């Protein structure tokens, strides 16, 4: 069924049910993935998925919603009926409408159309990658977590007011997490993830090298003494933290009382002036970019922190109405519309004279902890309190020498962290969740085994 056919079918059925106002978001995908285990195919998987989320407005302008994978005539009719029933329980405190920008022009990124390589080819590539990674060092015994996948999908948004937009794209992902073991030592594990529009876009060799290098680097580990340390956060680690506390920028979270910000926080100084943060879903490096959000609002670049000051919140249609502004393209369709960032870009602003630029992770000779990757975010972050306590993979640097840290957690407070940045390095790095330089923090609590 074509996207336009679904819209016609919904429109016809809605008319029959006397439903005048509706919108929907739909997703159709074909996904293929493989996993291997020491040369053998472990799990080969293909899926064809279709899902549609329908909203209807009743005569009191209250919204009801239903989600279904049944796109038959009876399925769509049932979904519209259920949504209509649910609308009687619509939120009377917060009226939702179509996005006023749902018909504005969108920027659909051009990219080469990819065709599925097929399971056999995926399997061959992954087997070779696994073999090379195991051969890269005698301590690497297995690659327990690995996968190569390709996905081809189409997303649609349409409403009864005539808005209609869709896009199709593809995405491929390779992940390799190696496990290294040596006699009388604890096993160590690390890995690498690479994304591309298609499998042929993925730099497989660099994924293998990175996974090997990171795993081997942690072989000689030692415990760290509990205490306060100068900390350098890798681009990935800093982005992980900012994403974990993105409720600071989230208008939905502010309305719900679970954000550290409030409605009047725009203009507040929340970090040192050398920090800029943007949300930039359309960035050319963002493989997962989408030209519009769940409500059909076009995606756009938005400044969140400018020279240390909170500059904008992320909005859906309803939060924008409450804040008397316009939606920003960050809505996720649901009974209660969610709001979330797309892809963060972090950089040093031009007000950086107070930074300690001698702090460069490649050549600083003093003692510091380098945090490569933060783990267990869902368990260790209290976003509404601003606190975190997270296990990490990293190194202790002393006099230019580094040793892998056995097992440790880093704890702190996001407000403290943002105001105690000592340096934002000049060079930015691309990660799967955004772009960021290395960021140095004055003192954070580290708990080790000692």
């Amino acid at each position, binding site marked *: *069924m074509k996207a336009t056919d679904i819209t016609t079918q919904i429109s016809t059925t809605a008319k029959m049910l006397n439903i005048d106002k509706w919108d929907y978001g739909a997703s*159709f995908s074909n996904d293929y993935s493989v996993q291997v285990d020491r040369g053998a195919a*472990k*799990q*080969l*998987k*293909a*899926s*064809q*998925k*279709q*899902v549609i989320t329908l909203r209807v407005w009743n005569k009191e302008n209250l919204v009801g*919603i*239903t*989600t279904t*994978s*049944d*796109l038959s005539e009876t399925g769509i009719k049932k979904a519209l009926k259920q949504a209509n*029933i*649910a609308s009687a*329980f619509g*939120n009377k*405190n917060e009226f939702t409408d179509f996005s006023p920008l749902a018909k504005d022009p969108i920027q659909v990124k051009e990219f080469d159309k990819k065709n599925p390589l097929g*399971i056999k080819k995926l399997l061959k590539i992954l087997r070779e990658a696994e073999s090379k990674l195991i051969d890269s060092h005698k301590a690497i015994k*297995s690659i327990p*977590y690995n996968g190569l996948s390709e996905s*081809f*999908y*189409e997303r649609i948004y349409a409403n009864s007011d005539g808005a209609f937009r869709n896009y199709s794209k593809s995405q491929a992902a390779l992940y390799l997490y190696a*496990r290294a073991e040596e006699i009388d030592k*604890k*096993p*160590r*594990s690390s890995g690498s993830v690479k994304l591309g529009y298609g499998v042929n876009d993925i730099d497989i060799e660099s994924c293998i090298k990175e996974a090997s290098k990171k795993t081997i680097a942690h072989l000689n580990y030692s415990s760290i003494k509990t205490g306060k340390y100068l900390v350098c956060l890798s681009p990935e680690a800093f982005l992980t933290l900012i994403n974990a506390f993105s409720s600071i920028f989230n208008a939905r979270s502010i309305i*719900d*009382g*679970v954000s550290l910000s409030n409605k009047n926080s725009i203009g507040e100084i929340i970090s040192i002036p050398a920090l800029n943060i943007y949300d930039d879903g359309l960035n050319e490096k963002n493989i997962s970019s989408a030209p519009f959000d769940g409500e059909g609002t076009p995606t756009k670049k938005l400044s969140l922190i400018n020279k240390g000051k909170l500059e904008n919140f992320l909005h859906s249609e309803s939060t924008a109405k409450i804040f008397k502004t316009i939606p920003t393209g960050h809505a996720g369709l*649901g*009974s*209660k519309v969610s709001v979330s960032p797309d892809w963060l870009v972090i950089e040093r602003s031009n007000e950086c004279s107070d930074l300690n630029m001698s702090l460069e992770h490649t050549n600083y000779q003093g003692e510091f902890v380098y945090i490569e990757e933060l*783990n*267990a975010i*869902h*368990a*260790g972050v*209290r976003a*509404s*309190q601003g*606190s975190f*306590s*997270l*296990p990490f993979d990293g190194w202790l640097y002393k006099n230019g020498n580094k040793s892998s840290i056995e*097992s*440790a*957690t880093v*704890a*702190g407070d996001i407000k403290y962290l943002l105001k105690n940045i000592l340096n934002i390095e000049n060079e930015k790095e691309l990660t799967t969740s955004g772009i960021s330089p290395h960021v140095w923090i004055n003192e954070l*609590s580290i*708990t*080790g085994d000692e």
Partner: protein
Amino acid sequence: MVTSSIKSSEIRFGECNKKLLEEVIFYGISLGADFVELFIENSDNSSVLAEEDFITSVSPSFGKGAGIRIFKDKRDGFVSTNDLSKHGLMRSISQAIEMLDISEKTNKLTFNGLNKLKNYSASKIDWLNEVPSINEVSEKLLLSTKSLKKDKKVVVRKGSYARNWQEVIIASSDGTYSTDIRLHQTVGLNIIATDAQYRSNGSRRFGSHGIPDEFRSWDHEKAANDVYESSMNMLYADYVQAGQMPVILANKFGGVIFHEACGHLLETTQIERGTTPFSDKLNTKIAHESVTAIDEGLSEGSFGSLSVDDEGMEPEKSILIKDGILKKFLSDRAGELRTGHKRTGSGRRQNYSFAAASRMRNTYIAKGEFTKDELINSISDGLYCKSMGGGSVGATGQFNFAVEEGYLIKNGKLTKPVKGATLIGDAKEVMPKISMCGNDLELAPGFCGSVSGSVNVTVGQPHIKVDSITVGGR
């Protein structure tokens, strides 16, 4: 990108599909598969959210789909689809055959048709009609959020309800043919309290399986009092000082640590990956002799219980650890094929889009002989973890868990509340340090995310004492 289904011959729930299922399975076997399994699902879900004194979200959803799995030797290929027509199912079979690169039509096994239907759903047909209506749910959730309105310091009050109804047909080339209906209901309360710079959270979740009426008898006031009290106790708490110390883990959800840190390592999927330190430890001591641990799918009404697993096998009671000795691994069909450990009725999946894997059900440490006070009295300087938050286990078996509500123990007595604690360790080191088990075993519902998606489980334990563990803090 989506093709229309052929309607002439399609799976119909509540009707006999035997002939169609046999045709599809036979098709797979005739193409050279050693084994063919069909998991077909019809779902009807609903969730309701109350915030402060309003219902802010009502979300129904429904769907149908099939997961088709084929084995050839020890390899398997899995295809999922929303197309339940004969044509759609056979196309998925062909796709799985192609994936496994099966060109020779010589299979080791023959297909002699499906057995007589094992109908586990017969007594459950009316469940969907017996669950509370959205109106009933809304009214009770609003009462529960009202019950949390005890103090001006309480700034966020939330009550949530979710109902998942699932009808499944399981058929495979060894003759397995079953139908079942599952019904899970869960209700949760969340609170945020603030006072000046102080801020605390509290949350509790309750859940059941196969009891349509359960929500109606839920004691929302008791739950609200419990969440409120927890949040107030933690509001002015200091951060815990990091270090190594003995801890007491409370009963009920305290069992999440055993589930995450040890239970997962006893699933055959972990043996297959080579990520469990226990793969060669069967019948050897891996824990303190005070520890006996069980996983079962049988406790009536428990969130992780099931009549039949997602591969058509009835669940068994599996004694995983007996007096510290490792006795059994949890196994599914692929696990038995690849590791030799017999199936335990533990093949589970979130829905049709996942292949089943060996997963926990109701998992708990058995009760011991001590009272809670005896455990606390045995510690001069340590931490009491009354309520646990979430946690995770890494690829090397190292775990970490957030303590939602903690208290310092000084000279055998509970003293001041502390926040920001994280428990860090690995199962191999911690299991031998569980030196005392209380006599107050209780279970708590939860959701477990792993290789075959998110499944409903129960965790549990009595109060237990761990002699020494790393506590992360400030």
